């Protein structure tokens, strides 16, 4: 539970305020009279989130580029697993594989762990000191390329460079 | 359209009933918990469909609360009720 005291910039506060206000607007169906409670609620949520979630240097354009990739891949993941469930022979060949992550620890790693669980044929079953344990549904398929692609995208989203952290050992 | 929503809700409920088999079958505690997860996701889907049939946006809020709280039960299981060794007392 170590919380790194990163500097909290105005940009973080304003962007979170914007995000939570958007959620509030969505929840209340845009009712103008709701801001009586909405403003204190959004402020409280921003205060709590500042205390809980350390500011992350998102690169918004990369995040937006990631969304269609993720949607498509998770759709394929659903189709893939559905096909295996419907198939009379249950064509699976599960195995456990180890993937040493080059991403910095914290949010980037968690982001990748969660993404991996929704991609075709992979499920993250453990994260220990940057080593990701992945359960694969079909070990005959080339899942390493996929994992690397995901890692690259996540690195771009968080503005992290994989090459620099490669020499961390 | 109304008929379709209801038919799909019914289909999802039957599907849910089939998934219940896992609660009884196990074999591990985690397998039983998976059924509860299935319940959560399916209940959200059924609520969304019913919200459309009744034209009642309050049902979307029910679905929202489900979506938020389903995780809490599962986390409580993983963090609290899951014993270290997998022993199953019942042999049905």
């Amino acid at each position: 539970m170590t919380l790194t005291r990163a500097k909290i910039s105005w940009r973080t506060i304003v962007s979170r305020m914007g995000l939570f206000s958007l959620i509030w607007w969505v929840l209340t169906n845009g009712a103008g009279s709701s801001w009586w409670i909405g403003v204190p609620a959004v402020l409280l949520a921003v205060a709590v989130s500042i205390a809980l979630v350390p500011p992350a240097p998102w690169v918004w354009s990369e995040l937006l580029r990631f969304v269609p990739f993720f949607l498509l891949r998770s759709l394929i993941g659903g189709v893939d697993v559905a096909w295996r469930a419907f198939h009379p022979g249950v064509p699976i060949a599960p195995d456990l594989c180890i993937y040493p992550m080059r991403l910095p620890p914290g949010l980037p790693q968690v982001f990748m762990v969660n993404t991996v669980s929704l991609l075709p044929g992979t499920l993250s079953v453990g994260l220990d000191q940057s080593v990701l344990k992945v359960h694969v549904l079909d070990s005959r398929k080339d899942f390493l390329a996929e994992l690397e692609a995901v890692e690259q995208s996540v690195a771009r989203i968080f503005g992290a460079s994989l090459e620099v952290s490669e020499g961390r050992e | 359209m109304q008929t379709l929503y209801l038919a799909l809700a019914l289909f999802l409920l039957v599907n849910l009933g089939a998934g219940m088999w896992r609660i009884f079958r196990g074999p591990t505690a985690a397998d039983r918990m998976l059924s509860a997860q299935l319940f959560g996701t399916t209940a959200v889907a059924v609520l969304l469909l019913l919200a459309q049939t009744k034209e009642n946006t309050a049902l979307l809020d029910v679905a929202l609360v489900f979506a938020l709280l389903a995780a809490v039960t599962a986390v409580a299981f993983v963090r609290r009720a899951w014993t270290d060794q997998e022993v199953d007392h019942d042999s049905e």
Partner: protein
Amino acid sequence: MLQWALDALLGLGLLWLAWCALMSPNLLKAIVLFVAFGLLMALAWVRLDAPDIALAEAAIGAGLTGALLLAALARLRFAYADEETVGSPAQEEAKVRFPQWLPAVPLLLVVAGLGYVVLSLPPYATGLSTEVTANLESSGVSNPVTAVLLNFRGYDTLLELVVLLVALLGVWSLDGLALGRETAPGPVLDTLSRFLTPVFILVAAYLLWVGAHAPGGAFQAGSVLGAAGVLLLLAGWRFRAGLTELPLRLVLVAGPGAFVIVALVTMLMEGQLLEYSPEQASILILFLETTATFSIGATLAALFFGGRPQDDKEHT
């Protein structure tokens, strides 16, 4: 036709789940079945056109009760860890001393009483909904359920809050069972709890606001807030020692306390307990609901935590 099939499936499923949950010798299975029962029950309330109760059931029945029961199961297992869980001598003895048919007697009495009440009801009754609708204007809110709960029958809600507080006092007065050692939550759970907490706060505030004119209200909002607390506790979060003493207790009594004060003031000013003048009703109800939300959330999270927070020594 389809509606019939849906309702029949829901009804039969509920009965079946209730039976299985009651008869299961495996407690974990019983809890999972109970959670499933809660989810199905919420759907049944939706079909019965009672979204208010569906929302409460979703928040309390399917969400928090499951977590509470699972935590209780963990403590039970820990308490009996040295004995054999099944068929321990103590349990066998208890079985002999306590005949299994004994609970059936009060149960049958209750059933007989309920049956008598149901049979003695007048065959045609309009209920109170017309009166509620007629007086809705003066209640300060436009959701009839909230109007009943916080205005027409405010004392019901006041007593419910007190019951919740008494439940917590009961738990606190019991000898707190220490939990077993807790493993590290891992970064995924840690991140999940951090990300979800602000969303829980927003949703709780939303339910509080929407309660004035649509399904929602303090109990639903409070349980969403309580769930946030439960999630943080599960992720290994503990408040600093100073905060769990007086500040926590103040939050716990704020809801019922505010209610009692309002009740007394209204009695002095209007001559009747919890009788608000129509002009002030809206703001008073909002005030009561807000304090109640915080109290309910804190109480539920504290209930989940179990023993008194300051007894918890093993955590850092």
